[in-house]
């Protein structure tokens, strides 16, 4: 993300202008006209549509649009659409008027939006034209009148959600909204499903927001262009939606795979984690808002190249594939390549499209379930993976183990229901490398594979067919299986194309850099070392108590698990020892029995030997049980806790980047002040530009940080739940094994007792 952002932000600044211009000047009219023209319209839900209609005076009757919207709305829950309009208003106000304090009715939202707006305003040193304010407040009044109900709903919602998680809620809530509205057109183009929008906004929103004002005068001439563009944008979509809602779907999908991935990953956590929290609001909001945007999008590519270009910039990663005037066909081509997996988000976005509504509801349900009970996950991710048949391939030190990875799933994202591929151990490591590189910085907890073991593998390579190497291979096989299962049961990681490729593709390019003793391995070690150093040097004054506590919890859990693991391993060792000793005792007893000259006693002794033989097997099985159901479970969690810490570290890094950017910005400001004092206008301009640039970065990094924070939080919550469930399941499993072995034991001794009694 980070690497791609700076370039992306630059163009976006420019691009962001149109909206602001648009909003400030041309749109203001429409607002008032809107309110005048359509005071009766109850459909406040789609203000943007309305604007569009009004500004364009399009032939498409707004009523039509309204109806269609309404109809769609009807399909969805009623609350959602109701929220929406008020959001929009709020945003518009926030973005434009700057004086939202009177807006008591929309209490929460507006105040926050305004606050956000204030903030950005302050940084950009630009004063808004009073006229805007006025019209804005006019409009606001209207809006209030028309949308009182919905607004109240919204504020209720907000209140409740805020009450639960105030800091987070406010942050996240405000941002997207503000961004969203001020940048409506570009956002529209993205057509990115709910999650996407949220994301994008978080990333870019402020840039858009702040930049334009500064450079406004300079770029005045662009206004008309954009105004037009917007008009088009806004105007067309209505028709698009009403007439061909189906089209939207394929369009939604093509959203470049990468974006979809990122989006789903980022959005995923947000949505899943907090049931009654901003995430919900987001998703709801997004669901409703995006469609309206999307309507515009349908036309987008046709009507104005400018826009789509903007889009590509803004969603640098996301829409790279979109050519300037990408026809729908082209996009459609992308569909097969794109996982239908992004369906949840996509279809969420297209919720208003009628054909989709049914599936949407399903998906929504799914999501809700997921939010409420992660237990449902197993149903949702109906996918089972087995790693089998470890096989040594090659000879000597070049030998390696290959495993059969079999996937069984009815999920439509896979080509077949059952498929098997052969993977070698380094492929598993390679998958992890890819995943952690991609998702680690975003705060995801990527399940780690078992470590490379030079010792264990060398034994296998040398080809000693002893029990310890067989044990090693079996342990590793099981660990790999659990590793893959964890990945595919992670809602976001499952969507990753690399995961799919790993599971599906016949031949996989050889993973590089996974060898422990290679140059890459060495580099990795150095990187780790520098990471460790920088980790120590970063002094993060943790403002979030939750994280502080969690970190401590994780650390002490890690310690405890390590201890426990050592103990369980020693139990395994002792049990194996016991098994061996029992075996040799059984032999001795048999010998003693044969030496005994009393027939009955001799017989009883050989019976005892048999019992001991069976006990040996029991102990052996028990040791296996100890290993696979207990020790390995703990080992897994030691590794996983490492990943959890890794995600905490990534959050810290994001924080550090933000802080660094802030410091840099501070420096620039000082320079600016000095230059002002020195009265050097030429340099001043340069510095101002730099300041703007840094401001963008600061907000962007702050958002990054917030996003990573939210993700980590969600992931940790998910992790904890998983952990609890996993432990319960495994330990119960373990105890059941114990129970069985006790039952066997009883059987054996019961059989022996009469023999002992028969000694005479």
């Amino acid at each position, binding site marked *: 993300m980070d690497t791609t952002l700076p370039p992306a932000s630059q163009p976006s600044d420019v691009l962001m202008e149109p909206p602001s211009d648009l909003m400030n000047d041309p749109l203001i009219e429409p607002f008032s006209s809107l309110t005048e023209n359509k005071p009766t319209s109850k459909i406040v839900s789609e203000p943007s549509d309305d604007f569009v209609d009004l500004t364009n005076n399009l032939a498409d009757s707004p009523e039509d649009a309204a109806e269609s919207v309404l109809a769609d709305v009807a399909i969805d829950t009623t609350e959602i659409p109701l929220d929406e309009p008020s959001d929009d208003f709020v945003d518009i106000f926030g973005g434009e008027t700057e004086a939202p304090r009177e807006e008591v009715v929309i209490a929460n939202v507006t105040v926050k939006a305004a606050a956000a707006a204030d903030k950005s305003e302050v940084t950009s040193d630009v004063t808004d034209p009073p006229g805007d304010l006025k019209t804005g407040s006019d409009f606001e009044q209207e809006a209030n009148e028309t949308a009182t109900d919905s607004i109240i709903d919204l504020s209720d919602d907000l209140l409740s959600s805020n009450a639960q998680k105030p800091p987070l809620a406010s942050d996240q809530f405000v941002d997207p909204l503000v961004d969203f509205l001020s940048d409506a057109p570009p956002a529209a183009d993205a057509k990115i499903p709910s999650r996407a929008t949220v994301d994008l906004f978080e990333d870019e929103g402020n840039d858009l927001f702040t930049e334009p004002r500064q450079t406004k005068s300079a770029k005045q001439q662009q206004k008309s262009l954009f105004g037009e563009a917007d008009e088009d944008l806004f105007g067309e979509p209505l028709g698009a939606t009403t007439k061909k809602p189906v089209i939207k779907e394929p369009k939604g999908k093509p959203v470049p795979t990468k974006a979809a991935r990122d989006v789903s990953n980022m959005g995923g956590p947000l949505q899943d984690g907090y049931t009654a929290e901003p995430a919900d609001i987001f998703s709801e909001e997004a669901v409703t808002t995006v469609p309206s945007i999307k309507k515009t999008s349908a036309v987008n590519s046709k009507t104005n190249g400018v826009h789509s270009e903007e889009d590509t910039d803004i969603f640098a990663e996301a829409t790279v594939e979109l050519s300037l005037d990408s026809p729908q066909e082209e996009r459609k081509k992308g569909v097969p390549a794109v996982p239908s997996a992004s369906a949840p988000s996509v279809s969420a976005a297209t919720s208003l499209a009628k054909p989709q509504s049914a599936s949407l509801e399903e998906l929504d349900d799914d999501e809700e379930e997921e939010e409420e009970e992660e237990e449902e996950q197993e149903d949702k991710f109906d996918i089972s993976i087995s790693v089998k048949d470890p096989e040594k391939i090659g000879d000597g030190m070049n030998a390696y183990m290959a495993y059969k990875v079999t996937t069984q799933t009815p999920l439509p994202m896979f080509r077949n229901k059952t498929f098997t591929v052969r993977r070698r151990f380094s492929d598993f490591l390679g998958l992890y490398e890819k995943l952690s590189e991609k998702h680690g910085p975003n705060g995801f907890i990527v399940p780690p594979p078992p470590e490379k073991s030079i010792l264990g593998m060398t034994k296998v390579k040398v080809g000693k067919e002893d029990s310890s190497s067989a044990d090693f291979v079996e342990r590793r096989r099981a660990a790999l299986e659990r590793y893959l299962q964890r990945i595919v049961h992670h809602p976001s990681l499952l969507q990753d194309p690399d995961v799919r490729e790993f599971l599906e593709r016949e031949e996989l390019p050889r993973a590089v850099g996974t060898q422990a003793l290679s140059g890459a391995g060495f580099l990795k070690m150095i990187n780790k070392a520098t990471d460790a150093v920088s980790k120590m040097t970063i002094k993060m004054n943790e403002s979030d108590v939750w994280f502080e506590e969690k970190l401590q919890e994780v650390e002490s859990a890690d310690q405890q698990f390590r201890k426990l693991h050592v*103990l369980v391993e020693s*139990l395994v060792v002792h049990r194996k020892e016991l098994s061996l*000793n029992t075996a040799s005792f059984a032999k001795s007893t048999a010998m003693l029995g044969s030496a005994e000259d009393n027939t009955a006693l001799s017989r009883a002794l050989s019976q005892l030997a048999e019992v001991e033989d069976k006990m040996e097997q029991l102990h052996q099985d028990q040791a296996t049980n100890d290993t696979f159901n207990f020790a390995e479970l703990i080992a897994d969690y030691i590794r996983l806790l490492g990943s959890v810490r890794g995600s905490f570290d990534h959050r810290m890094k994001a924080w550090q980047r933000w802080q660094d950017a802030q410091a840099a910005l501070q420096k620039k400001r000082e320079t600016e002040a000095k230059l002002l004092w020195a009265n050097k206008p030429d340099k001043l301009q340069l510095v101002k530009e730099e300041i703007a640039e840094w401001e963008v970065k600061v907000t962007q990094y702050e958002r990054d940080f917030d996003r990573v924070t939210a993700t980590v939080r969600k992931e940790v919550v998910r992790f904890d739940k998983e952990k609890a469930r996993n432990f319960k399941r495994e330990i119960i499993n373990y105890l059941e094994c114990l129970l069985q072995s006790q039952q066997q034991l*009883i059987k054996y001794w019961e059989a022996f007792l009469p023999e002992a009694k028969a*000694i005479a």
Partner: protein
Amino acid sequence: MMQEGLDDGPDFLSEEDRGPRAVNVDLQTDATLQVDISDALSERDKVKFTVHTKSTLPNFKQNEFSVVRQHEEFIWLHDSFVENEEYAGYIIPPAPPRPDFDASREKLQKLGEGEGSMTKEEFTKMKQELEAEYLAIFKKTVAMHEVFLCRVAAHPVLRKDLNFHVFLEYNQDLSVRGKNKKEKLEDFFKNVVKSADGVLVAGVKDVDDFFEHEKTFLLEYHNRVKDASAKSDRMIRSHKNAADDINRIASSLYTLGTQDSTDLCKFFLKVSELFEKTRKIESRVAADEDLKLADLLKYYLRESQAAKDLLYRRSRALVDYENANKALDKARAKNRDVLQAETSQQLCCHKFEKISESAKQELIDFKTRRVAAFRKNLVELAELELKHAKGNLQLLQSCLVVLKGNT
């Protein structure tokens, strides 16, 4: 410092399996002379046993009395039997092994040193563990000594031994001392000579099929029982280790469980509780196997050695007798010292016959005793194993019900 009464820690061994009856090797108990060890004190490097006697025999001044004896005095009594020619035809009850608390003490000391490095719970757990171990060794020692006395008291001839009576009755220190270095060295040489001699003697073909058979049997049996005893010790040790591990896992889980008050923590606490109980059962299993199996085998290791010694004495007597016969023949041929040779021959003959006569009975008794003891112990072992396994099963079942209900 370390003072342990026998009745401490009632939890460790329940009534049924405690005490000397662990290895009951006697055929019949006779109400006329009953000996037990009623108490024992462990002091720094010695154990003081309170030997309690109940008797209706006229040799004793009282019907019931107690004296305090130490391990060395038991050894003295045993040696006096061995050295007594009169008893050559009997299997001398094997002497009890020397109390060995060193390993346990050392561990306890180490624990004290490592006190700072572990949590309080761990420390208490370890301490309990070691104390239990110490107590177990202690009880075993006491039991072994008691078994020795009971065997003697039950023996038709040995019970009348004067030394034995003194040992039981004289309420002062017998002022026997441990053997000094010189004596130990002598003993060592005696043993070397004896075993070398034993090999020589063993090569002599016995005229009596019974003894020939017993000889081969005992030779093999002794080796087998030695092996089995060593193996059972190892098995039990690893069983105890496993039980200790479970104990530590329990306390580790407990720490995990007390970190928080989440569901999972409660779960951990429950599992910890279960492990704690399982640990108890497992160590009981190990302890019972130790008592019923390992101790039995150990006892028969020593007893078979004693039986082998008897056979050796008999073979020795036989060789002596044959030599005397040869000497007599020679004397007769030379017609010199005939009378002396005759008396010597007769003496040897008498001795051999006497040994043979009692030895036969002793060996038959040994077998009967052995079968009875094995029967009793194996039955008890099986019953205890069953009891523990059932207890464990129940524990697991009820715990699983709770845990499953929780999830």
